[in-house]
């Protein structure tokens, strides 16, 4: 079967056919790797942007880069880190791990999955073409109106930003639909919702947030697009409009977005801690409910980003109270994680180090967040380096550390090689030190009045010392990242091969080989409890003894039907790219791109539509075989 030929060891393949296999893949594991590689690439890009900014700010009245360039740098740094680094790194894990964690062979819509990736790729490309065009976005990652109007931003810079984000939004939405259906509808028999691994739960909440929050920014951007291209008045004060409309729409998206950024890391930490403590997550149901509550209430706090705009005391108070309330489920989780370690037998792997780092740093970020929840106090901190410190503690100290924990944890499963544990720990300590040296002083800088988004500052304000310290820390972070890259290169070349279950894990992904075969599970697992694999191996410690695994039924794995590759995802993504980028070129390209998109959509939808003589409907998309009858009998 051609599908499997590419994966059979020993088959000699040309570079061309290898490239083609990646371009047309619909395998969730490969798509996860595509997202992962892209995320790391853009993390580097965003990191370099940060280093340049830190070099400029190391001294007062700096002259390394001018005002315009600096404004472009902080805009692209924020946009890149949020949309092109953290989100896709989360997506890499959703893609690779969710089917494995729920005992499925792929996601619900494999081609839609591939489409999400290629549309993401197009969006990232469109955004970065701005560099080639010499019109780099420069209005900040949240692009407040009416600075983004044609009057005050006359070049194409904002257009690149606006169109790029629209495309990225489409990618995220499609992935959201896919994973909601996958998680709800493709769990192995016996895996009730409450028996689902925590990472899957947090991911489910994230997908609901994506599906419900992205439309708000889509509308915000559409209104901006109409203002810029067609002269509408949505954000035009001269026409009676209120520029705050942008802020409301943006933050109705923006606040759930920060939960989208943190929940995957929380999910990872909720997997890593039990594994390396050798006991279950303390209060798993409570952690699950907290995640759901955070997702739900996260839609009710958006204006805490707007305490200085003059909404009035009633609105200020309402959002303040809502924000304090949401701190409760968030804070409670930290205690659940610490209680998981308590009484355990803690093994200090690199993965665990990063999870511990997550807890330590996210605690600090959460506490500075609590300070922001009080509007009078926030008025001294918002738009200063204090809030810059806060969000880096939660996004870097939180999300990035948590995601790296996942990298070290699941690397052996994904690549069949163990990462070097010593290098992992060097990476951790360098990153921990570098991160804190870079960002802790920013609390001080904020408290002594340094505003954010300034390309330089006067020498007599007392800001010089901590700016210099912060810049030095940034280079330590870079060093830590180089250690990680070295670890990857060295172990890929000559690392120890990884067994199926290197950590004595608790969940289903450790029951299959490392890396998994294309069909993941030879026979569909049947689940009896949360952490079913652990219970199978060790019993549940409350009377249920270990289960002897059933002797492997002979399964003719070569005949497991997996969805074949398809080139329609990349073609459709390409058509979308032509249409959206056409807005910067000519109406003909937009119309042409639109027709091409329509054509590709129809071909995509009908790719597996049967002829009239096939009795069995293989459906709109060719999902993988699931079910005990599936293996070997189709």
């Amino acid at each position: 079967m051609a599908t499997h030929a590419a994966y059979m060891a020993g088959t000699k393949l040309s570079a061309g056919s290898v490239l083609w296999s990646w371009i047309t893949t619909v395998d969730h594991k490969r798509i996860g790797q595509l997202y992962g590689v892209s995320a790391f690439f853009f993390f580097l890009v965003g990191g370099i942007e940060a280093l340049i900014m830190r070099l400029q700010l190391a001294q007062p009245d700096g002259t390394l880069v001018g005002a315009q360039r600096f404004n472009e740098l902080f805009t692209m740094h924020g946009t890149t880190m949020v949309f092109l680094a953290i989100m896709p790194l989360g997506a890499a894990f959703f893609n690779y791990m969710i089917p494995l964690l729920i005992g499925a062979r792929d996601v619900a819509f494999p081609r839609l999955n591939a489409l999400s990736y290629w549309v993401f790729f197009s969006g990232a490309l469109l955004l970065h073409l701005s560099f080639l065009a010499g019109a780099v976005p420069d209005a900040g990652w949240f692009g407040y109106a009416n600075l983004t109007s044609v009057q005050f931003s006359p070049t194409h810079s904002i257009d690149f930003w606006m169109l790029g984000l629209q495309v990225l939004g489409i990618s995220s939405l499609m992935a959201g639909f896919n994973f909601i259906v996958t998680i709800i509808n493709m769990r192995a028999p016996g895996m009730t919702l409450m028996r689902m691994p925590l990472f899957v739960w947090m991911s489910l909440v994230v997908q609901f947030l994506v599906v419900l929050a992205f439309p708000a920014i889509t509308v915000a951007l559409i209104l901006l697009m109409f203002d810029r291209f067609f002269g509408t008045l949505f954000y035009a004060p001269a026409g009676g409009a209120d520029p705050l409309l942008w802020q409301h729409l943006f933050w109705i998206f923006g606040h759930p977005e920060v939960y989208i950024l943190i929940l995957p890391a929380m999910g990872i930490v909720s997997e890593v801690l039990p594994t390396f403590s050798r006991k279950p997550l303390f209060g798993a149901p409570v952690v699950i409910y907290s995640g759901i509550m955070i997702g739900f209430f996260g839609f009710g706090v958006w204006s805490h980003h707007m305490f200085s705009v003059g909404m009035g005391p009633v609105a200020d108070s309402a959002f303040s109270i809502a924000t304090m309330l949401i701190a409760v489920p968030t804070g409670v989780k930290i205690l659940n994680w610490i209680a998981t370690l308590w009484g355990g037998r803690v093994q200090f792997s690199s993965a665990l180090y990063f999870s511990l780092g997550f807890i330590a740093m996210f605690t600090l970020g959460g506490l500075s967040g609590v300070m922001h929840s009080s509007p009078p106090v926030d008025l001294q901190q918002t738009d200063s380096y204090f809030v810059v410190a806060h969000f880096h503690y939660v996004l870097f100290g939180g999300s990035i550390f948590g995601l790296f924990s996942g990298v070290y944890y699941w690397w052996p499963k994904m690549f069949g090689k163990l990462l070097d544990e010593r290098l992992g720990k060097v990476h951790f300590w360098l990153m921990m030190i570098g991160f804190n040296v870079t960002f802790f002083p920013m609390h001080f800088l904020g408290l002594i009045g340094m505003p954010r988004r300034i390309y330089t500052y006067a020498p007599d304000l007392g800001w010089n010392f901590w700016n210099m310290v912060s810049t030095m820390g940034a280079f330590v972070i870079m060093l830590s990242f180089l250690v990680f890259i070295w670890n990857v290169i060295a172990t890929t070349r000559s690392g120890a091969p990884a067994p199926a279950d290197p950590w004595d894990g608790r969940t289903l992904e450790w029951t299959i080989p490392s890396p998994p075969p294309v069909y993941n599970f030879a026979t569909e697992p049947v689940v009896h409890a949360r952490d079913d694999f652990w219970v199978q191996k060790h019993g549940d410690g409350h009377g249920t003894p270990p289960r002897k695994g059933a002797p492997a039924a002979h399964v003719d794995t070569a005949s497991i039907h997996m969805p074949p590759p398809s080139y329609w995802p990349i073609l459709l993504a390409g058509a979308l790219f032509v249409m959206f980028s056409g807005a910067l070129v000519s109406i003909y390209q937009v119309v042409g791109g639109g027709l091409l998109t329509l054509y590709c959509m129809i071909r995509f939808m009908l790719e597996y539509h049967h002829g009239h003589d096939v009795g069995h409907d293989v459906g709109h998309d060719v999902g993988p075989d699931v079910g005990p009858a599936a293996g070997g009998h189709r």
Partner: protein
Amino acid sequence: MRKSLLSRIPTALLLLTVALLLSSCGSSMWDSPMTTVRPKSEFGRITHEIFMLISWWTLGIGIAVEAGLLWVCFRYREKPGAPIPKQVHGHTLLEVSWTIVFALILLIFAIPTIPAIFKTQEAPAATALRVDVSGRQWWWEFKYPDLKVVTANELHLPAGQTVAFNLHAPDVIHSFWTPQLGGKRDVVPGRVNRVTLMPDETGEYPGQCAEYCGTSHANMRFRVIVHTKADFEKWVAAQQRPPVQPTDPLAQKGQDLFSQSACVGCHTIAGISGGVLGPNLTHFGSRKTMGANLLANTPENLAKWIENPGHMKPGVLMPDLGMRGEQSKALAAYLLSLK
């Protein structure tokens, strides 16, 4: 057993962190000109009280949580040969209790917060001094409508009197922030925001725009000078006088140059020109700084500015009018004579 270097790092870091934090305690850093923790107004003091309350609690919680984390790591680190630990799934009473404790701590923050929100946003008394602030790319206009005074970038106020600010935004969103006075408030096009402040100590306090507003956002600074009541009245009287007629020949040359060139299209000097696109220059010579608290107000800086404003302030809307050499020196002399 020799401990590896790697395993000594946690202890070293802990000590370093403690040292760093302690060092910040007595530091004079907190007295910086734009500090937020040495309030000099009523608004600032109300804010500061709540800030200190939250700070102490969060410091305590932070230390407790981090210490707890470190303790469980040390206490329960794996010892070789140890059995699988007890598979504890949770403890409902404990979880409910700590949830309630969290909620109560937040209540402690909420209780002073809500009244402070309402108090600081109360309508000002009728006896308040009214100041109309206009934030524009990239400078600040200050008008005292009841005193008939218009100036820019340096805000003079009397100590001990409530000031009612009306905030206007003719172009994009900016934010009016004097850290030592507190009460940051955005200026938003299409609406008039209000903030009421009562500075209670004389002194000079730098302020800065705190909402990204374009190329020279970093250069949109200002200065607040709080006088005694008597000094403030002297300042007002000086501002209300008509502009000084220049006696120095260079300054006279500058005045002629000014009234004959495009300067008049953007700037107002009472009796000479009425432009409103740029700062009012009637008493420009009385200001200590120029370019929106960017540079000291000296003949050299002023001449350089006139010759090439965009060099000192990227993106600035003031064009280069081609003044060079003698011309820019003359204009500088004239403007600095307008005390």
